[in-house]
């Protein structure tokens, strides 16, 4: 019998029948390659587990605590970097305005105040006009006005939808 089946039996760690065991023993007496393979199999089976030095769990807890501290520090540093970067970008964009404010503060301040005053005046005028109209116009006029506004809006929406469905300039 040739060498191959014995090597395969050893590599597959096949459970041998008694006749096969006898054949294997005879082969191992002659074949140094299979003999070494068998010794390696036995050697690997015989090697025992190695345990860590006492206190492994305590050392793990210490390492875990150190890792957490490091993580917290890194998070804090990350937030600081993010904050500083955000502020720097904001300053970069705001610089023209800030520059104007610092060197000629009256100009932008006057412009802002004027704009605020205009908005305030417009709101007041709308308020006064509304109260006058409420007092002057009868109820049915208000109803007709509201209905006209709703109808106008509906027409606007429908026409928009119609145009949106068929792209202009595109043939069917």
């Amino acid at each position, binding site marked *: 019998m040739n060498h191959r089946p014995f090597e395969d039996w050893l*590599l597959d760690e096949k459970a041998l029948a008694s006749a096969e*065991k006898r054949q*294997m*023993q005879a082969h*191992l*007496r002659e074949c*140094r*390659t299979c*003999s*070494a*393979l*068998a*010794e*390696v*199999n*036995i*050697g*690997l*089976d*015989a*090697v*025992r*587990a*190695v*345990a*860590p*030095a006492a206190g*492994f*769990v305590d*050392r*793990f*807890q210490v*390492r*875990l605590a150190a*890792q957490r501290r490091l993580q917290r520090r890194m998070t804090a540093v990350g937030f600081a970097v993010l904050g500083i970067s955000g502020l720097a970008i904001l300053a970069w964009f705001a610089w023209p305005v800030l520059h104007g404010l610092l060197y000629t503060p009256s100009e932008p301040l006057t412009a802002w105040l004027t704009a605020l005053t205009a908005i305030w005046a417009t709101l007041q005028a709308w308020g006064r006009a509304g109260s006058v109209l409420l007092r002057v116009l009868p109820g049915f006029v208000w109803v007709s006005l509201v209905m006209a506004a709703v109808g106008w809006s509906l027409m606007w929406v429908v026409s928009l939808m119609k145009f949106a469905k068929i792209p202009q300039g595109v043939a069917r």
Partner: protein
Amino acid sequence: MTDEKAWIIQAQHGDDEAFTRLVETYQTPVFNLCYRMLGEPEAAEDAAQEAFLKAYKNIARYDRERSFPTWLLAIAAHHCIDKLRRRRYLTFSIDEDEERTYELPDRNALDPEAEFIRRQEQDHMHKLLCTLDPTDRAALILRYWYDCSEVEIAQALELTVPAVKSRLHRTRRALAKRYQDEAPEARAERRPYESPAF
């Protein structure tokens, strides 16, 4: 539900006490794997600690349908493989006399001479293991020390089952070749066919 499953669920919900119990339970298998992979107890301690830290960070992603020890050992094996690959770029020497191992004592050993020979053989096997390619070594360790099936090894090392099988065959052939080449006369007296295994 077993204690282990309960600890895993608790650990997944952020219970450090439960995770510590898992560390207590699996410290020896994880350390042993790292020791067999890296060859030195100091490096093994560091790698085992790192493997547990990685497991702690990723415990929420652990799929409870899978075997926990296989998942944990896979983390340790990958960590050791990475370490060994990085080591290739570094030059260092190992003073073997300074190596300290913490092998579990054999309570049944009555014959000191037999125990001495057994230890010598185990040291020899350990040194042979350290000459193997990291992934081959991991496959062999998972097979022999942890009785992992080829499917489990394939999952752990992200290989296909035929690749695992072929690696295991090739690795054992290579080990046998080195074993044969190293000291043929020293083994002339103890032939494997005399072992009860054959």
